[in-house]
């Protein structure tokens, strides 16, 4: 990481503060202030408002003075009497665990294989990461063509397109989540593969040669030498995977608006803010729950990543 080792000239050039003119300082201030204000006003202010509103009851129709502060009432309702909440939590958890276990591992496996200087490696790579450029909503449409009960690819191949024996991949709440997970993984594998391929390129070749000379077989060399060297990428992959799982929305939205077995926290937030039955406080409560889970992963990641920068400063 570049942050871990600021070049020595950096240190000297950074001490030239007094040489900046007033105009230069003004320019620097504007360059920082405009984007920061925009970002804070549109991302962090609403985040804080979400937290505040999660303690309120408000239908959003009346003015701000119709807001009632109800303490933890929304949280109590979400946890006890809101039927789709626990299924949504369960689905988000399944999504997360599945994403971590299946597409991530497979992406790493593919990256490792594709890093072996095969002649056609570029062709394989291109095919596997093609879905990465597609919108998740479009991934949903494409897989609908595969899963569709009477017109879809799978049921036609299995010969189960008649009423009575057809498999309802998207409508049956016992299997539709898994069908969606496969569709989402189709895209996620390519993304993970690209990240790991970049990581593998930066693993020192002499490390592997040393392992080979010591008589390590492929698996041993991978587990003991290559995988530990991939640590920075592993952290990134973990965060990307967790965030993608929590953000999952459009792929289930285009299938059935996230109902009937496809409930997710992100969908529940959406359900509570638009339409006539808009419940701002309740929706915010769900958003805060999502926020808490996200931050539980984001903050440690930022600390791990930027700690390098801090160490560099102390040395100087």
């Amino acid at each position: 990481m570049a942050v871990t080792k600021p070049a020595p000239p950096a240190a000297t050039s950074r001490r030239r503060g007094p040489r900046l003119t007033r105009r230069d300082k003004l320019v620097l201030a504007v360059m920082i202030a405009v984007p920061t204000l925009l970002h804070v006003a549109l991302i962090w202010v609403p985040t804080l408002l979400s937290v505040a509103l999660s303690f309120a009851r408000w239908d959003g129709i009346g003015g701000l003075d119709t807001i009632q502060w109800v303490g933890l009432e929304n949280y109590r309702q979400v946890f006890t009497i809101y039927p789709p909440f626990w299924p949504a939590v369960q689905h988000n958890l399944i999504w997360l665990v599945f994403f971590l276990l299946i597409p991530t591992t497979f992406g790493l496996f593919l990256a490792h294989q594709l890093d072996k200087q095969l002649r056609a490696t570029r062709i394989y790579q291109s095919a596997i990461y093609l879905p990465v450029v597609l919108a998740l909503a479009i991934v949903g449409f494409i897989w609908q063509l595969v899963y569709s009960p009477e017109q879809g690819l799978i049921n036609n191949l299995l010969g189960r397109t008649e009423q009575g024996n057809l498999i309802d991949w998207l409508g049956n709440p016992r299997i539709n989540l898994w069908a969606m997970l496969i569709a989402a993984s189709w895209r996620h594998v390519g993304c993970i593969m690209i990240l790991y391929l970049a990581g593998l390129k930066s693993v020192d070749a002499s490390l592997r040669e040393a392992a080979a000379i010591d008589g390590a077989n492929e698996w041993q060399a991978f587990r003991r030498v290559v995988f530990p060297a991939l640590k920075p990428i592993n952290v990134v992959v973990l965060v990307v995977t967790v965030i993608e799982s929590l953000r999952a929305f459009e792929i289930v939205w285009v299938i059935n608006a996230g109902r009937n077995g496809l409930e997710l926290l992100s969908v529940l937030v959406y359900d509570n803010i638009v339409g006539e039955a808009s419940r701002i406080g309740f929706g915010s409560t769900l958003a805060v729950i999502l926020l808490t889970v996200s931050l539980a992963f984001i903050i440690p990641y930022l600390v791990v990543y930027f700690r390098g920068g801090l160490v560099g400063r102390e040395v100087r």
Partner: protein
Amino acid sequence: MATADVEVATKPREAAPTAVAGRPRRRLRPGRVVLNVFLIATALAWLTPLLWSVYTSLRPYEDTAVRGYVSLPGELNVDNFVNAWNQAELPRYYLNTLLIVVPAVILTLTFASFVAFVVSRFDIRLNLALLMVFTAGNLLPPQVIITPLYRLYLEMPLPYWMNDLGTLYDSYWGIIVIHVAFQLGFCIFVLSNYMKTIPYELTEAALVDGATVWRQFWKIIMPLCRPALAALATLEFTWIYNDFFWALVLMRTGEKRPIVSALSNLKGVFFVDNNLIAAGALLAALPTLIVYFVLQRQFVRGLTLGATKG
């Protein structure tokens, strides 16, 4: 990580093939054959859903109705594409998307370059805090902020020449600024790491010659960041183009929505059978597929440069 990533970015991929050519030709080993067979199978499996959509979209509905979907075609034509294009008035939605994506990408890259320049070249006290705020903001799920944001957009007045409704809600301006605010984090992260690898002597020399801060930024740093900017532009184009959520929630008028968000509305109204849905989905995906075929290297470079994704 940035050092490694930038290495990937600046050192062209040609390095690998030369290494292969330098070695003596390998014998055909059974392990390699098995691996290649496995990878061919995987690559084909990965292409199947897309190829299936293409195949379905090229067949007239009557043809599939008679012969079934898994069958040899009696007839192949582009009627579904023509129908999707005309019935659903797709050109309008492409234009809507363009109105959002182009300003959003330009603004994101401009603002991100500003912040990255300052935090990477000057030792201001808030450097680390700023980077963390932007990066964390970029990682938040959009649903976390959508409830208050939706209310804010409804309350925020906008002159009528900017939006008929007089609010930030349901306007292109609103969609553009939320994209910029959200995507800044990733671009700042990548660009600041990239700028840190540019030797300090360069700006130092300029400073001695009396160049202003702006001149250092515009004449020295920005030209050197072209590779990173190109990669980021490709990536951001794809991400913003692919947005579904913001336009779904922050816009009301279906006809104003960008194509990816509009697609789910169009389905059911105009796209009645799977053949037409396939054609519509492929048309909506077309610009990103073009990016994939033409700018593949930029796209991958953008992803690996940051090695983190928003």
